[in-house]
């Protein structure tokens, strides 16, 4: 057998994929979604709080946010998940039994929050000081000005980077595996990995990748679409002039050079 066809078989063996498909659809996909969606929600909310704390002038907010971010971003995800999963397991056992998901989601959220916090912070800090002045001169409190004027502008600027983190989260959801999963709790990657381990063929892993793509590509494009809509106010038929080399957002209409 020539090397190329061996390679092909290793990653693109349709039979292996077909075999793994039903389990991925019925078990892996829902589990990945549960983990990723809950952690994305919780992580984004926590991330926003961290971002706000991180730009506060009160060092009693700024420093804890900094330390939190440094630690949860710096430690290997596996170690964090283990620390939380093992450390809080006795507590978790009493509250919801041996299910590793609640603690797994908690750990994933705490990690994601550290990253998302930095993304939001960079967006918010990039909004001109004049905007805050404008809002405060109208009589808005600092909090309202942030919420209504600064944060919305800041977040929009970093939506693509935020999507990065959501995608990373979808993939990191496979790390709950460190807490021990029964067969029905395995998510996409784990199922792919198990097939790879039992057959020695990586096609199921690639199939998991295709599932990821089926989740992440639409996510990216939906957010990009929202992004564009927010930038331009209402749906505009974006000019697509191949002879023009510039497409900055908010660029004046007409054709520019």
């Amino acid at each position, binding site marked *: 057998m020539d*090397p190329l066809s*061996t390679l092909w078989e290793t990653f693109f063996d349709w039979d292996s994929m077909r075999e793994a498909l039903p389990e991925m659809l019925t078990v892996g996909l829902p589990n990945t979604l549960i983990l990723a969606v809950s952690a994305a929600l919780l992580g984004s909310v926590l991330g926003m709080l961290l971002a706000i704390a991180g730009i506060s002038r009160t060092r009693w907010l700024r420093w804890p946010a900094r330390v939190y971010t440094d630690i949860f971003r710096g430690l290997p995800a596996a170690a964090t998940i283990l620390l939380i999963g093992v450390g809080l397991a006795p507590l978790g056992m009493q509250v919801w039994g*041996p299910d*590793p998901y609640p603690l797994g989601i908690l750990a994933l959220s705490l990690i994601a929050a550290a990253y998302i916090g930095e993304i939001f912070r960079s967006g918010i800090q990039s909004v001109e000081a004049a905007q805050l002045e404008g809002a405060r001169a109208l009589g808005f409190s600092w909090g309202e000005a942030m919420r209504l004027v600064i944060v919305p502008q800041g977040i929009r600027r970093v939506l693509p980077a935020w999507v990065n983190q959501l995608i990373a989260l979808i993939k990191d959801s496979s790390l709950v*595996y460190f*807490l021990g999963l*029964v067969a029905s709790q395995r998510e996409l990657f784990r199922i792919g990995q198990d097939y790879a381990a*039992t057959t*020695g063929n990586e096609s199921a892993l690639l199939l998991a990748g295709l599932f990821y793509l089926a989740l992440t590509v639409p996510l990216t494009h939906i957010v990009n679409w929202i992004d564009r809509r927010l930038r331009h106010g209402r749906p505009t038929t974006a000019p697509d002039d191949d002879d023009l080399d510039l497409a900055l957002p908010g660029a004046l209409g007409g054709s520019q050079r």
Partner: protein
Amino acid sequence: GGGTSSDQAANPYGLLQPGVLRAGTLTDAPPNVYLKDGRFTGFDNDLLTAAAAKIGLRVEFVGTDFSALLSQVNNRKFDVGSSSITITEARRKTVDFGNGYDFGYFGLDVPAGSSITSFDQLTGKRVVVVQGTVQDDYATGKQLNPVRVPDYNGAINQLKAGTADAWIAPAEIGDASAADSNGKIKVADRLLSPAPTAYAFAKGNDALREALNKALDEVIADGTWSRLQAQYYPGRPVPAGFTPGSGTVAIPAAPTASASAYS
């Protein structure tokens, strides 16, 4: 790789580097395969080193993840896979196996206060296994719906935290863990593993496979196999039905006596 006759002569086994046997293994699965003091060791790896020496090859070990091991063997990134790989039908589709060289006992570890005393009592219990191991195969085959963890530490953590009722471990690991647990974990039962383990080769790499099979018989005959058994699995008897290698050579006696625990 080219196919000129001088190549053939210099590199009769079609190795990546003539004279060097590149072996894919794991770094974190003692006592079978692991890394200690910067050296790859463990029963399987030491045996492989001895066998390779018989055909004039130096072994270079590389550690990887089990899920990536066999595919890289098959794609000839590694000449051989050495990681207590149990021979299964599914894996035979991807790689070829040499002759079996080892067997295993399962140990059943439970928390100190547990009422479980044998493998028969596991139905409906939360049983933990390390993913992709023979124990995993066994538990899954028995419909035990095991909790899978990535490594032994994960399993021990589960028992200690009380999130699992029992752990099916390789017997030696189970014993050691129970001993190290300050009385929190005890060994409840033992069982002989059904399938032998073997080295994996790329499909069609028959020259190397056959040469190593022959070398394996030689290291069994010269007592290396028995010595390594005694070194890594002290006190573990060889079960009656098991014959390592081609089965045509006699096994010299192990240097130490067998323990009665294995009944």
